[in-house]
């Protein structure tokens, strides 16, 4: 490998056989290029889907009531189920230790929201102080709802950044301003920030206030939970499924619903959804790997083919060299040295080129479910080495045969 004379001999050969070298190089470089781009997009899809799921806390479990579809214990189907504070509290006492954050949710309907003379058409929701964490909202300014607001039925409101920009654009800050919700004044205490603008067009008020002022009862529409984060994804899914099942069976008993009546009490777990997506991604990644490996195999076959042709083409030259005193091993090493050199250079060229494209273009790709395609450098490097080793092995056998052909036969080769 460090024989300077042989390096010179090889550079001479390469310089004078440009087309042959170029073809070998292109087949190796394109193999690596395609593999890296494919793996990059596989990773990009994974990033993209992870990004979509990060918007809300991934361990979120939501429950909302529906209408019964089955007769149970003498009760007719078609009965509307209504969740109440009592349900929320019982769940807390039963499963409180299993959850991280919890909050009831009320959609406040049939209200008019005004700021001064301006009518605001935004949804109003009553929530508890944990809800910001469940919703993954970020505080833009002011503060979130706190325990005091809930316990003391405070007339305070939290608005989305979009509302601030639309309605309070003339003010430095909307905090301290009052909005009028169906005749009751609420003081704005904070502005929150969401990844999606749609979710910023909301006004949050304490759930207790919402019940007392607008609902007149202990009704709630929806309960959201998040579960503590678990490192292992499968464990996290198992935990979510268990919690979901417990939650549903408790609520089914509390509301006298048939255990197999899934539409009366609906429970949704983000993790289960995520699991489906992640297994989809895994399949896609597997497919990309499969295609990539096939590409590499095609590259190896291409390299071997070219090596075979190269050796065939050089049979006479090999005969001449042998007549002049070349030993068999020096012939084999000469051919292999050239093969390794060409595959290595073109392999790395393909690697650098494709990684460069991913680095430069990747961050600008704005397609749904594809975010920042990139590839693990070590994986790409390993494939280059696989290709080099495969090319070497593929080149060795023809080289060995050529080095051992009878010199006379080699010289007669036309």
């Amino acid at each position: 490998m460090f024989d300077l004379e042989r390096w010179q001999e090889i550079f001479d050969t390469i310089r004078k056989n440009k087309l042959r070298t170029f073809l070998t190089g292109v087949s190796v470089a394109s193999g690596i290029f395609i593999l890296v781009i494919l793996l990059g997009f596989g990773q990009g899809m994974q990033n993209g889907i992870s990004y979509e799921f990060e918007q809300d806390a991934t361990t979120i479990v939501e429950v909302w009531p529906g209408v019964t579809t089955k007769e149970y214990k003498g009760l007719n189907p078609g009965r509307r189920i209504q969740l109440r504070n009592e349900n929320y509290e019982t769940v807390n006492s039963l499963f409180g230790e299993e959850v991280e954050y919890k909050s009831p949710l009320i959609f406040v309907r049939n209200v008019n929201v005004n700021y001064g003379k301006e009518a605001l058409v935004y949804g109003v929701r009553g929530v508890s102080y944990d809800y910001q964490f469940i919703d993954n909202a970020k505080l833009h300014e002011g503060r979130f709802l706190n325990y005091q607001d809930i316990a003391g039925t405070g007339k305070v409101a939290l608005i989305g950044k979009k509302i601030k920009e639309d309605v309070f654009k003339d003010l430095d800050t909307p905090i301290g301003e009052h909005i009028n919700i169906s005749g009751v004044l609420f003081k704005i205490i904070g502005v929150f920030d969401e990844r999606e603008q749609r979710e910023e067009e909301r006004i949050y008020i304490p759930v207790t206030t919402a019940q007392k002022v607008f609902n007149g009862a202990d009704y709630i529409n929806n309960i959201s939970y998040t579960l503590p984060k678990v490192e292992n994804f499968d464990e996290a899914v198992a935990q979510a499924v268990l919690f979901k099942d417990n939650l549903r069976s408790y609520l089914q008993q509390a509301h006298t619903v048939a255990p197999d009546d899934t539409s009366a009490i609906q429970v949704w777990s983000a993790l289960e959804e995520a699991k489906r997506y992640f297994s989809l991604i895994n399949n896609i990644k597997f497919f990309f790997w499969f295609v990539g490996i096939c590409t590499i195999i095609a590259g190896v076959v291409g390299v071997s083919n070219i090596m075979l042709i190269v050796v065939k083409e050089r049979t006479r030259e090999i005969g001449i060299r042998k007549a002049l005193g070349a030993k068999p091993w020096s012939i084999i090493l000469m051919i292999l040295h050239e093969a390794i050199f060409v595959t290595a250079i073109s392999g790395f060229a393909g690697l650098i080129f494709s990684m460069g494209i991913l680095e430069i273009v990747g961050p600008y790709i704005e397609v749904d479910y594809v975010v920042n395609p990139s590839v693990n450098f070590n994986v790409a490097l390993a494939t280059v080495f696989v290709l080099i080793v495969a090319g070497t092995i593929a080149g060795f056998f023809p080289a060995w045969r050529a080095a051992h052909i009878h010199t006379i036969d080699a010289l007669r080769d036309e």
Partner: protein
Amino acid sequence: MIEIKDLHKSYKMGSNSLHVLKGINFSVEEGELVAIMGSSGSGKSTLLNILGMLDEADEGEYVLDGIPIKNLNETKAANYRNKFLGFIFQSFNLINYKTALENVALPLYYQKLPRKQRQEKALQYLEQVGLKEWSHHLPSELSGGQKQRVAIARAMVAEPKVLLADELTGALDSTTSYEVMELIQKINDQGNTILVVTHEPDIAQMCKRIVHLKDGVIVKDEKVKQVRAKAHV
């Protein structure tokens, strides 16, 4: 220089075997210029291949400059060829992507001589064959006679004990043939031992001794009065 005793060689052609050399005995002294003549199929090329260690005899002795040549493996044969023998072929056998100079320098590469020394020496031998100013041309840019002279320079560059030429004028017209033979005679005059395989009588007459081969045996071995090629050019 060369001692050959009772050399036999046969080739297997399917089920029957072809007995090509049937007991060859002859010796060559240092400084001789020997022509080996015979019609095609007489075994002259086979003899030359055995002498050149490109092929091995089935039976018999071959001693080159006091060294018995037998039981050769490829590496050993390669070494001997490199040190002791220079080859000149009918079809020149130059490497087509190497310049004249690089072709001549190639045997020295296998002697592991440093690049600079190789080039100096190769240039010196190219000068001897009168092609110094063609040293950076590719074989495709040279005429047949020039190619053969490059091949002769290449055969000479390693300073071998014996030069083996196989129909070296076979691909050349007669004027060029005589020019090449003049060069061979000049090299022989310097004391080099040369064996020429040919089927052309005029070429054979330019050697000092003619060995006639027929059906694998030597039928006639005579010293001749050398015809100087210069007279014909």
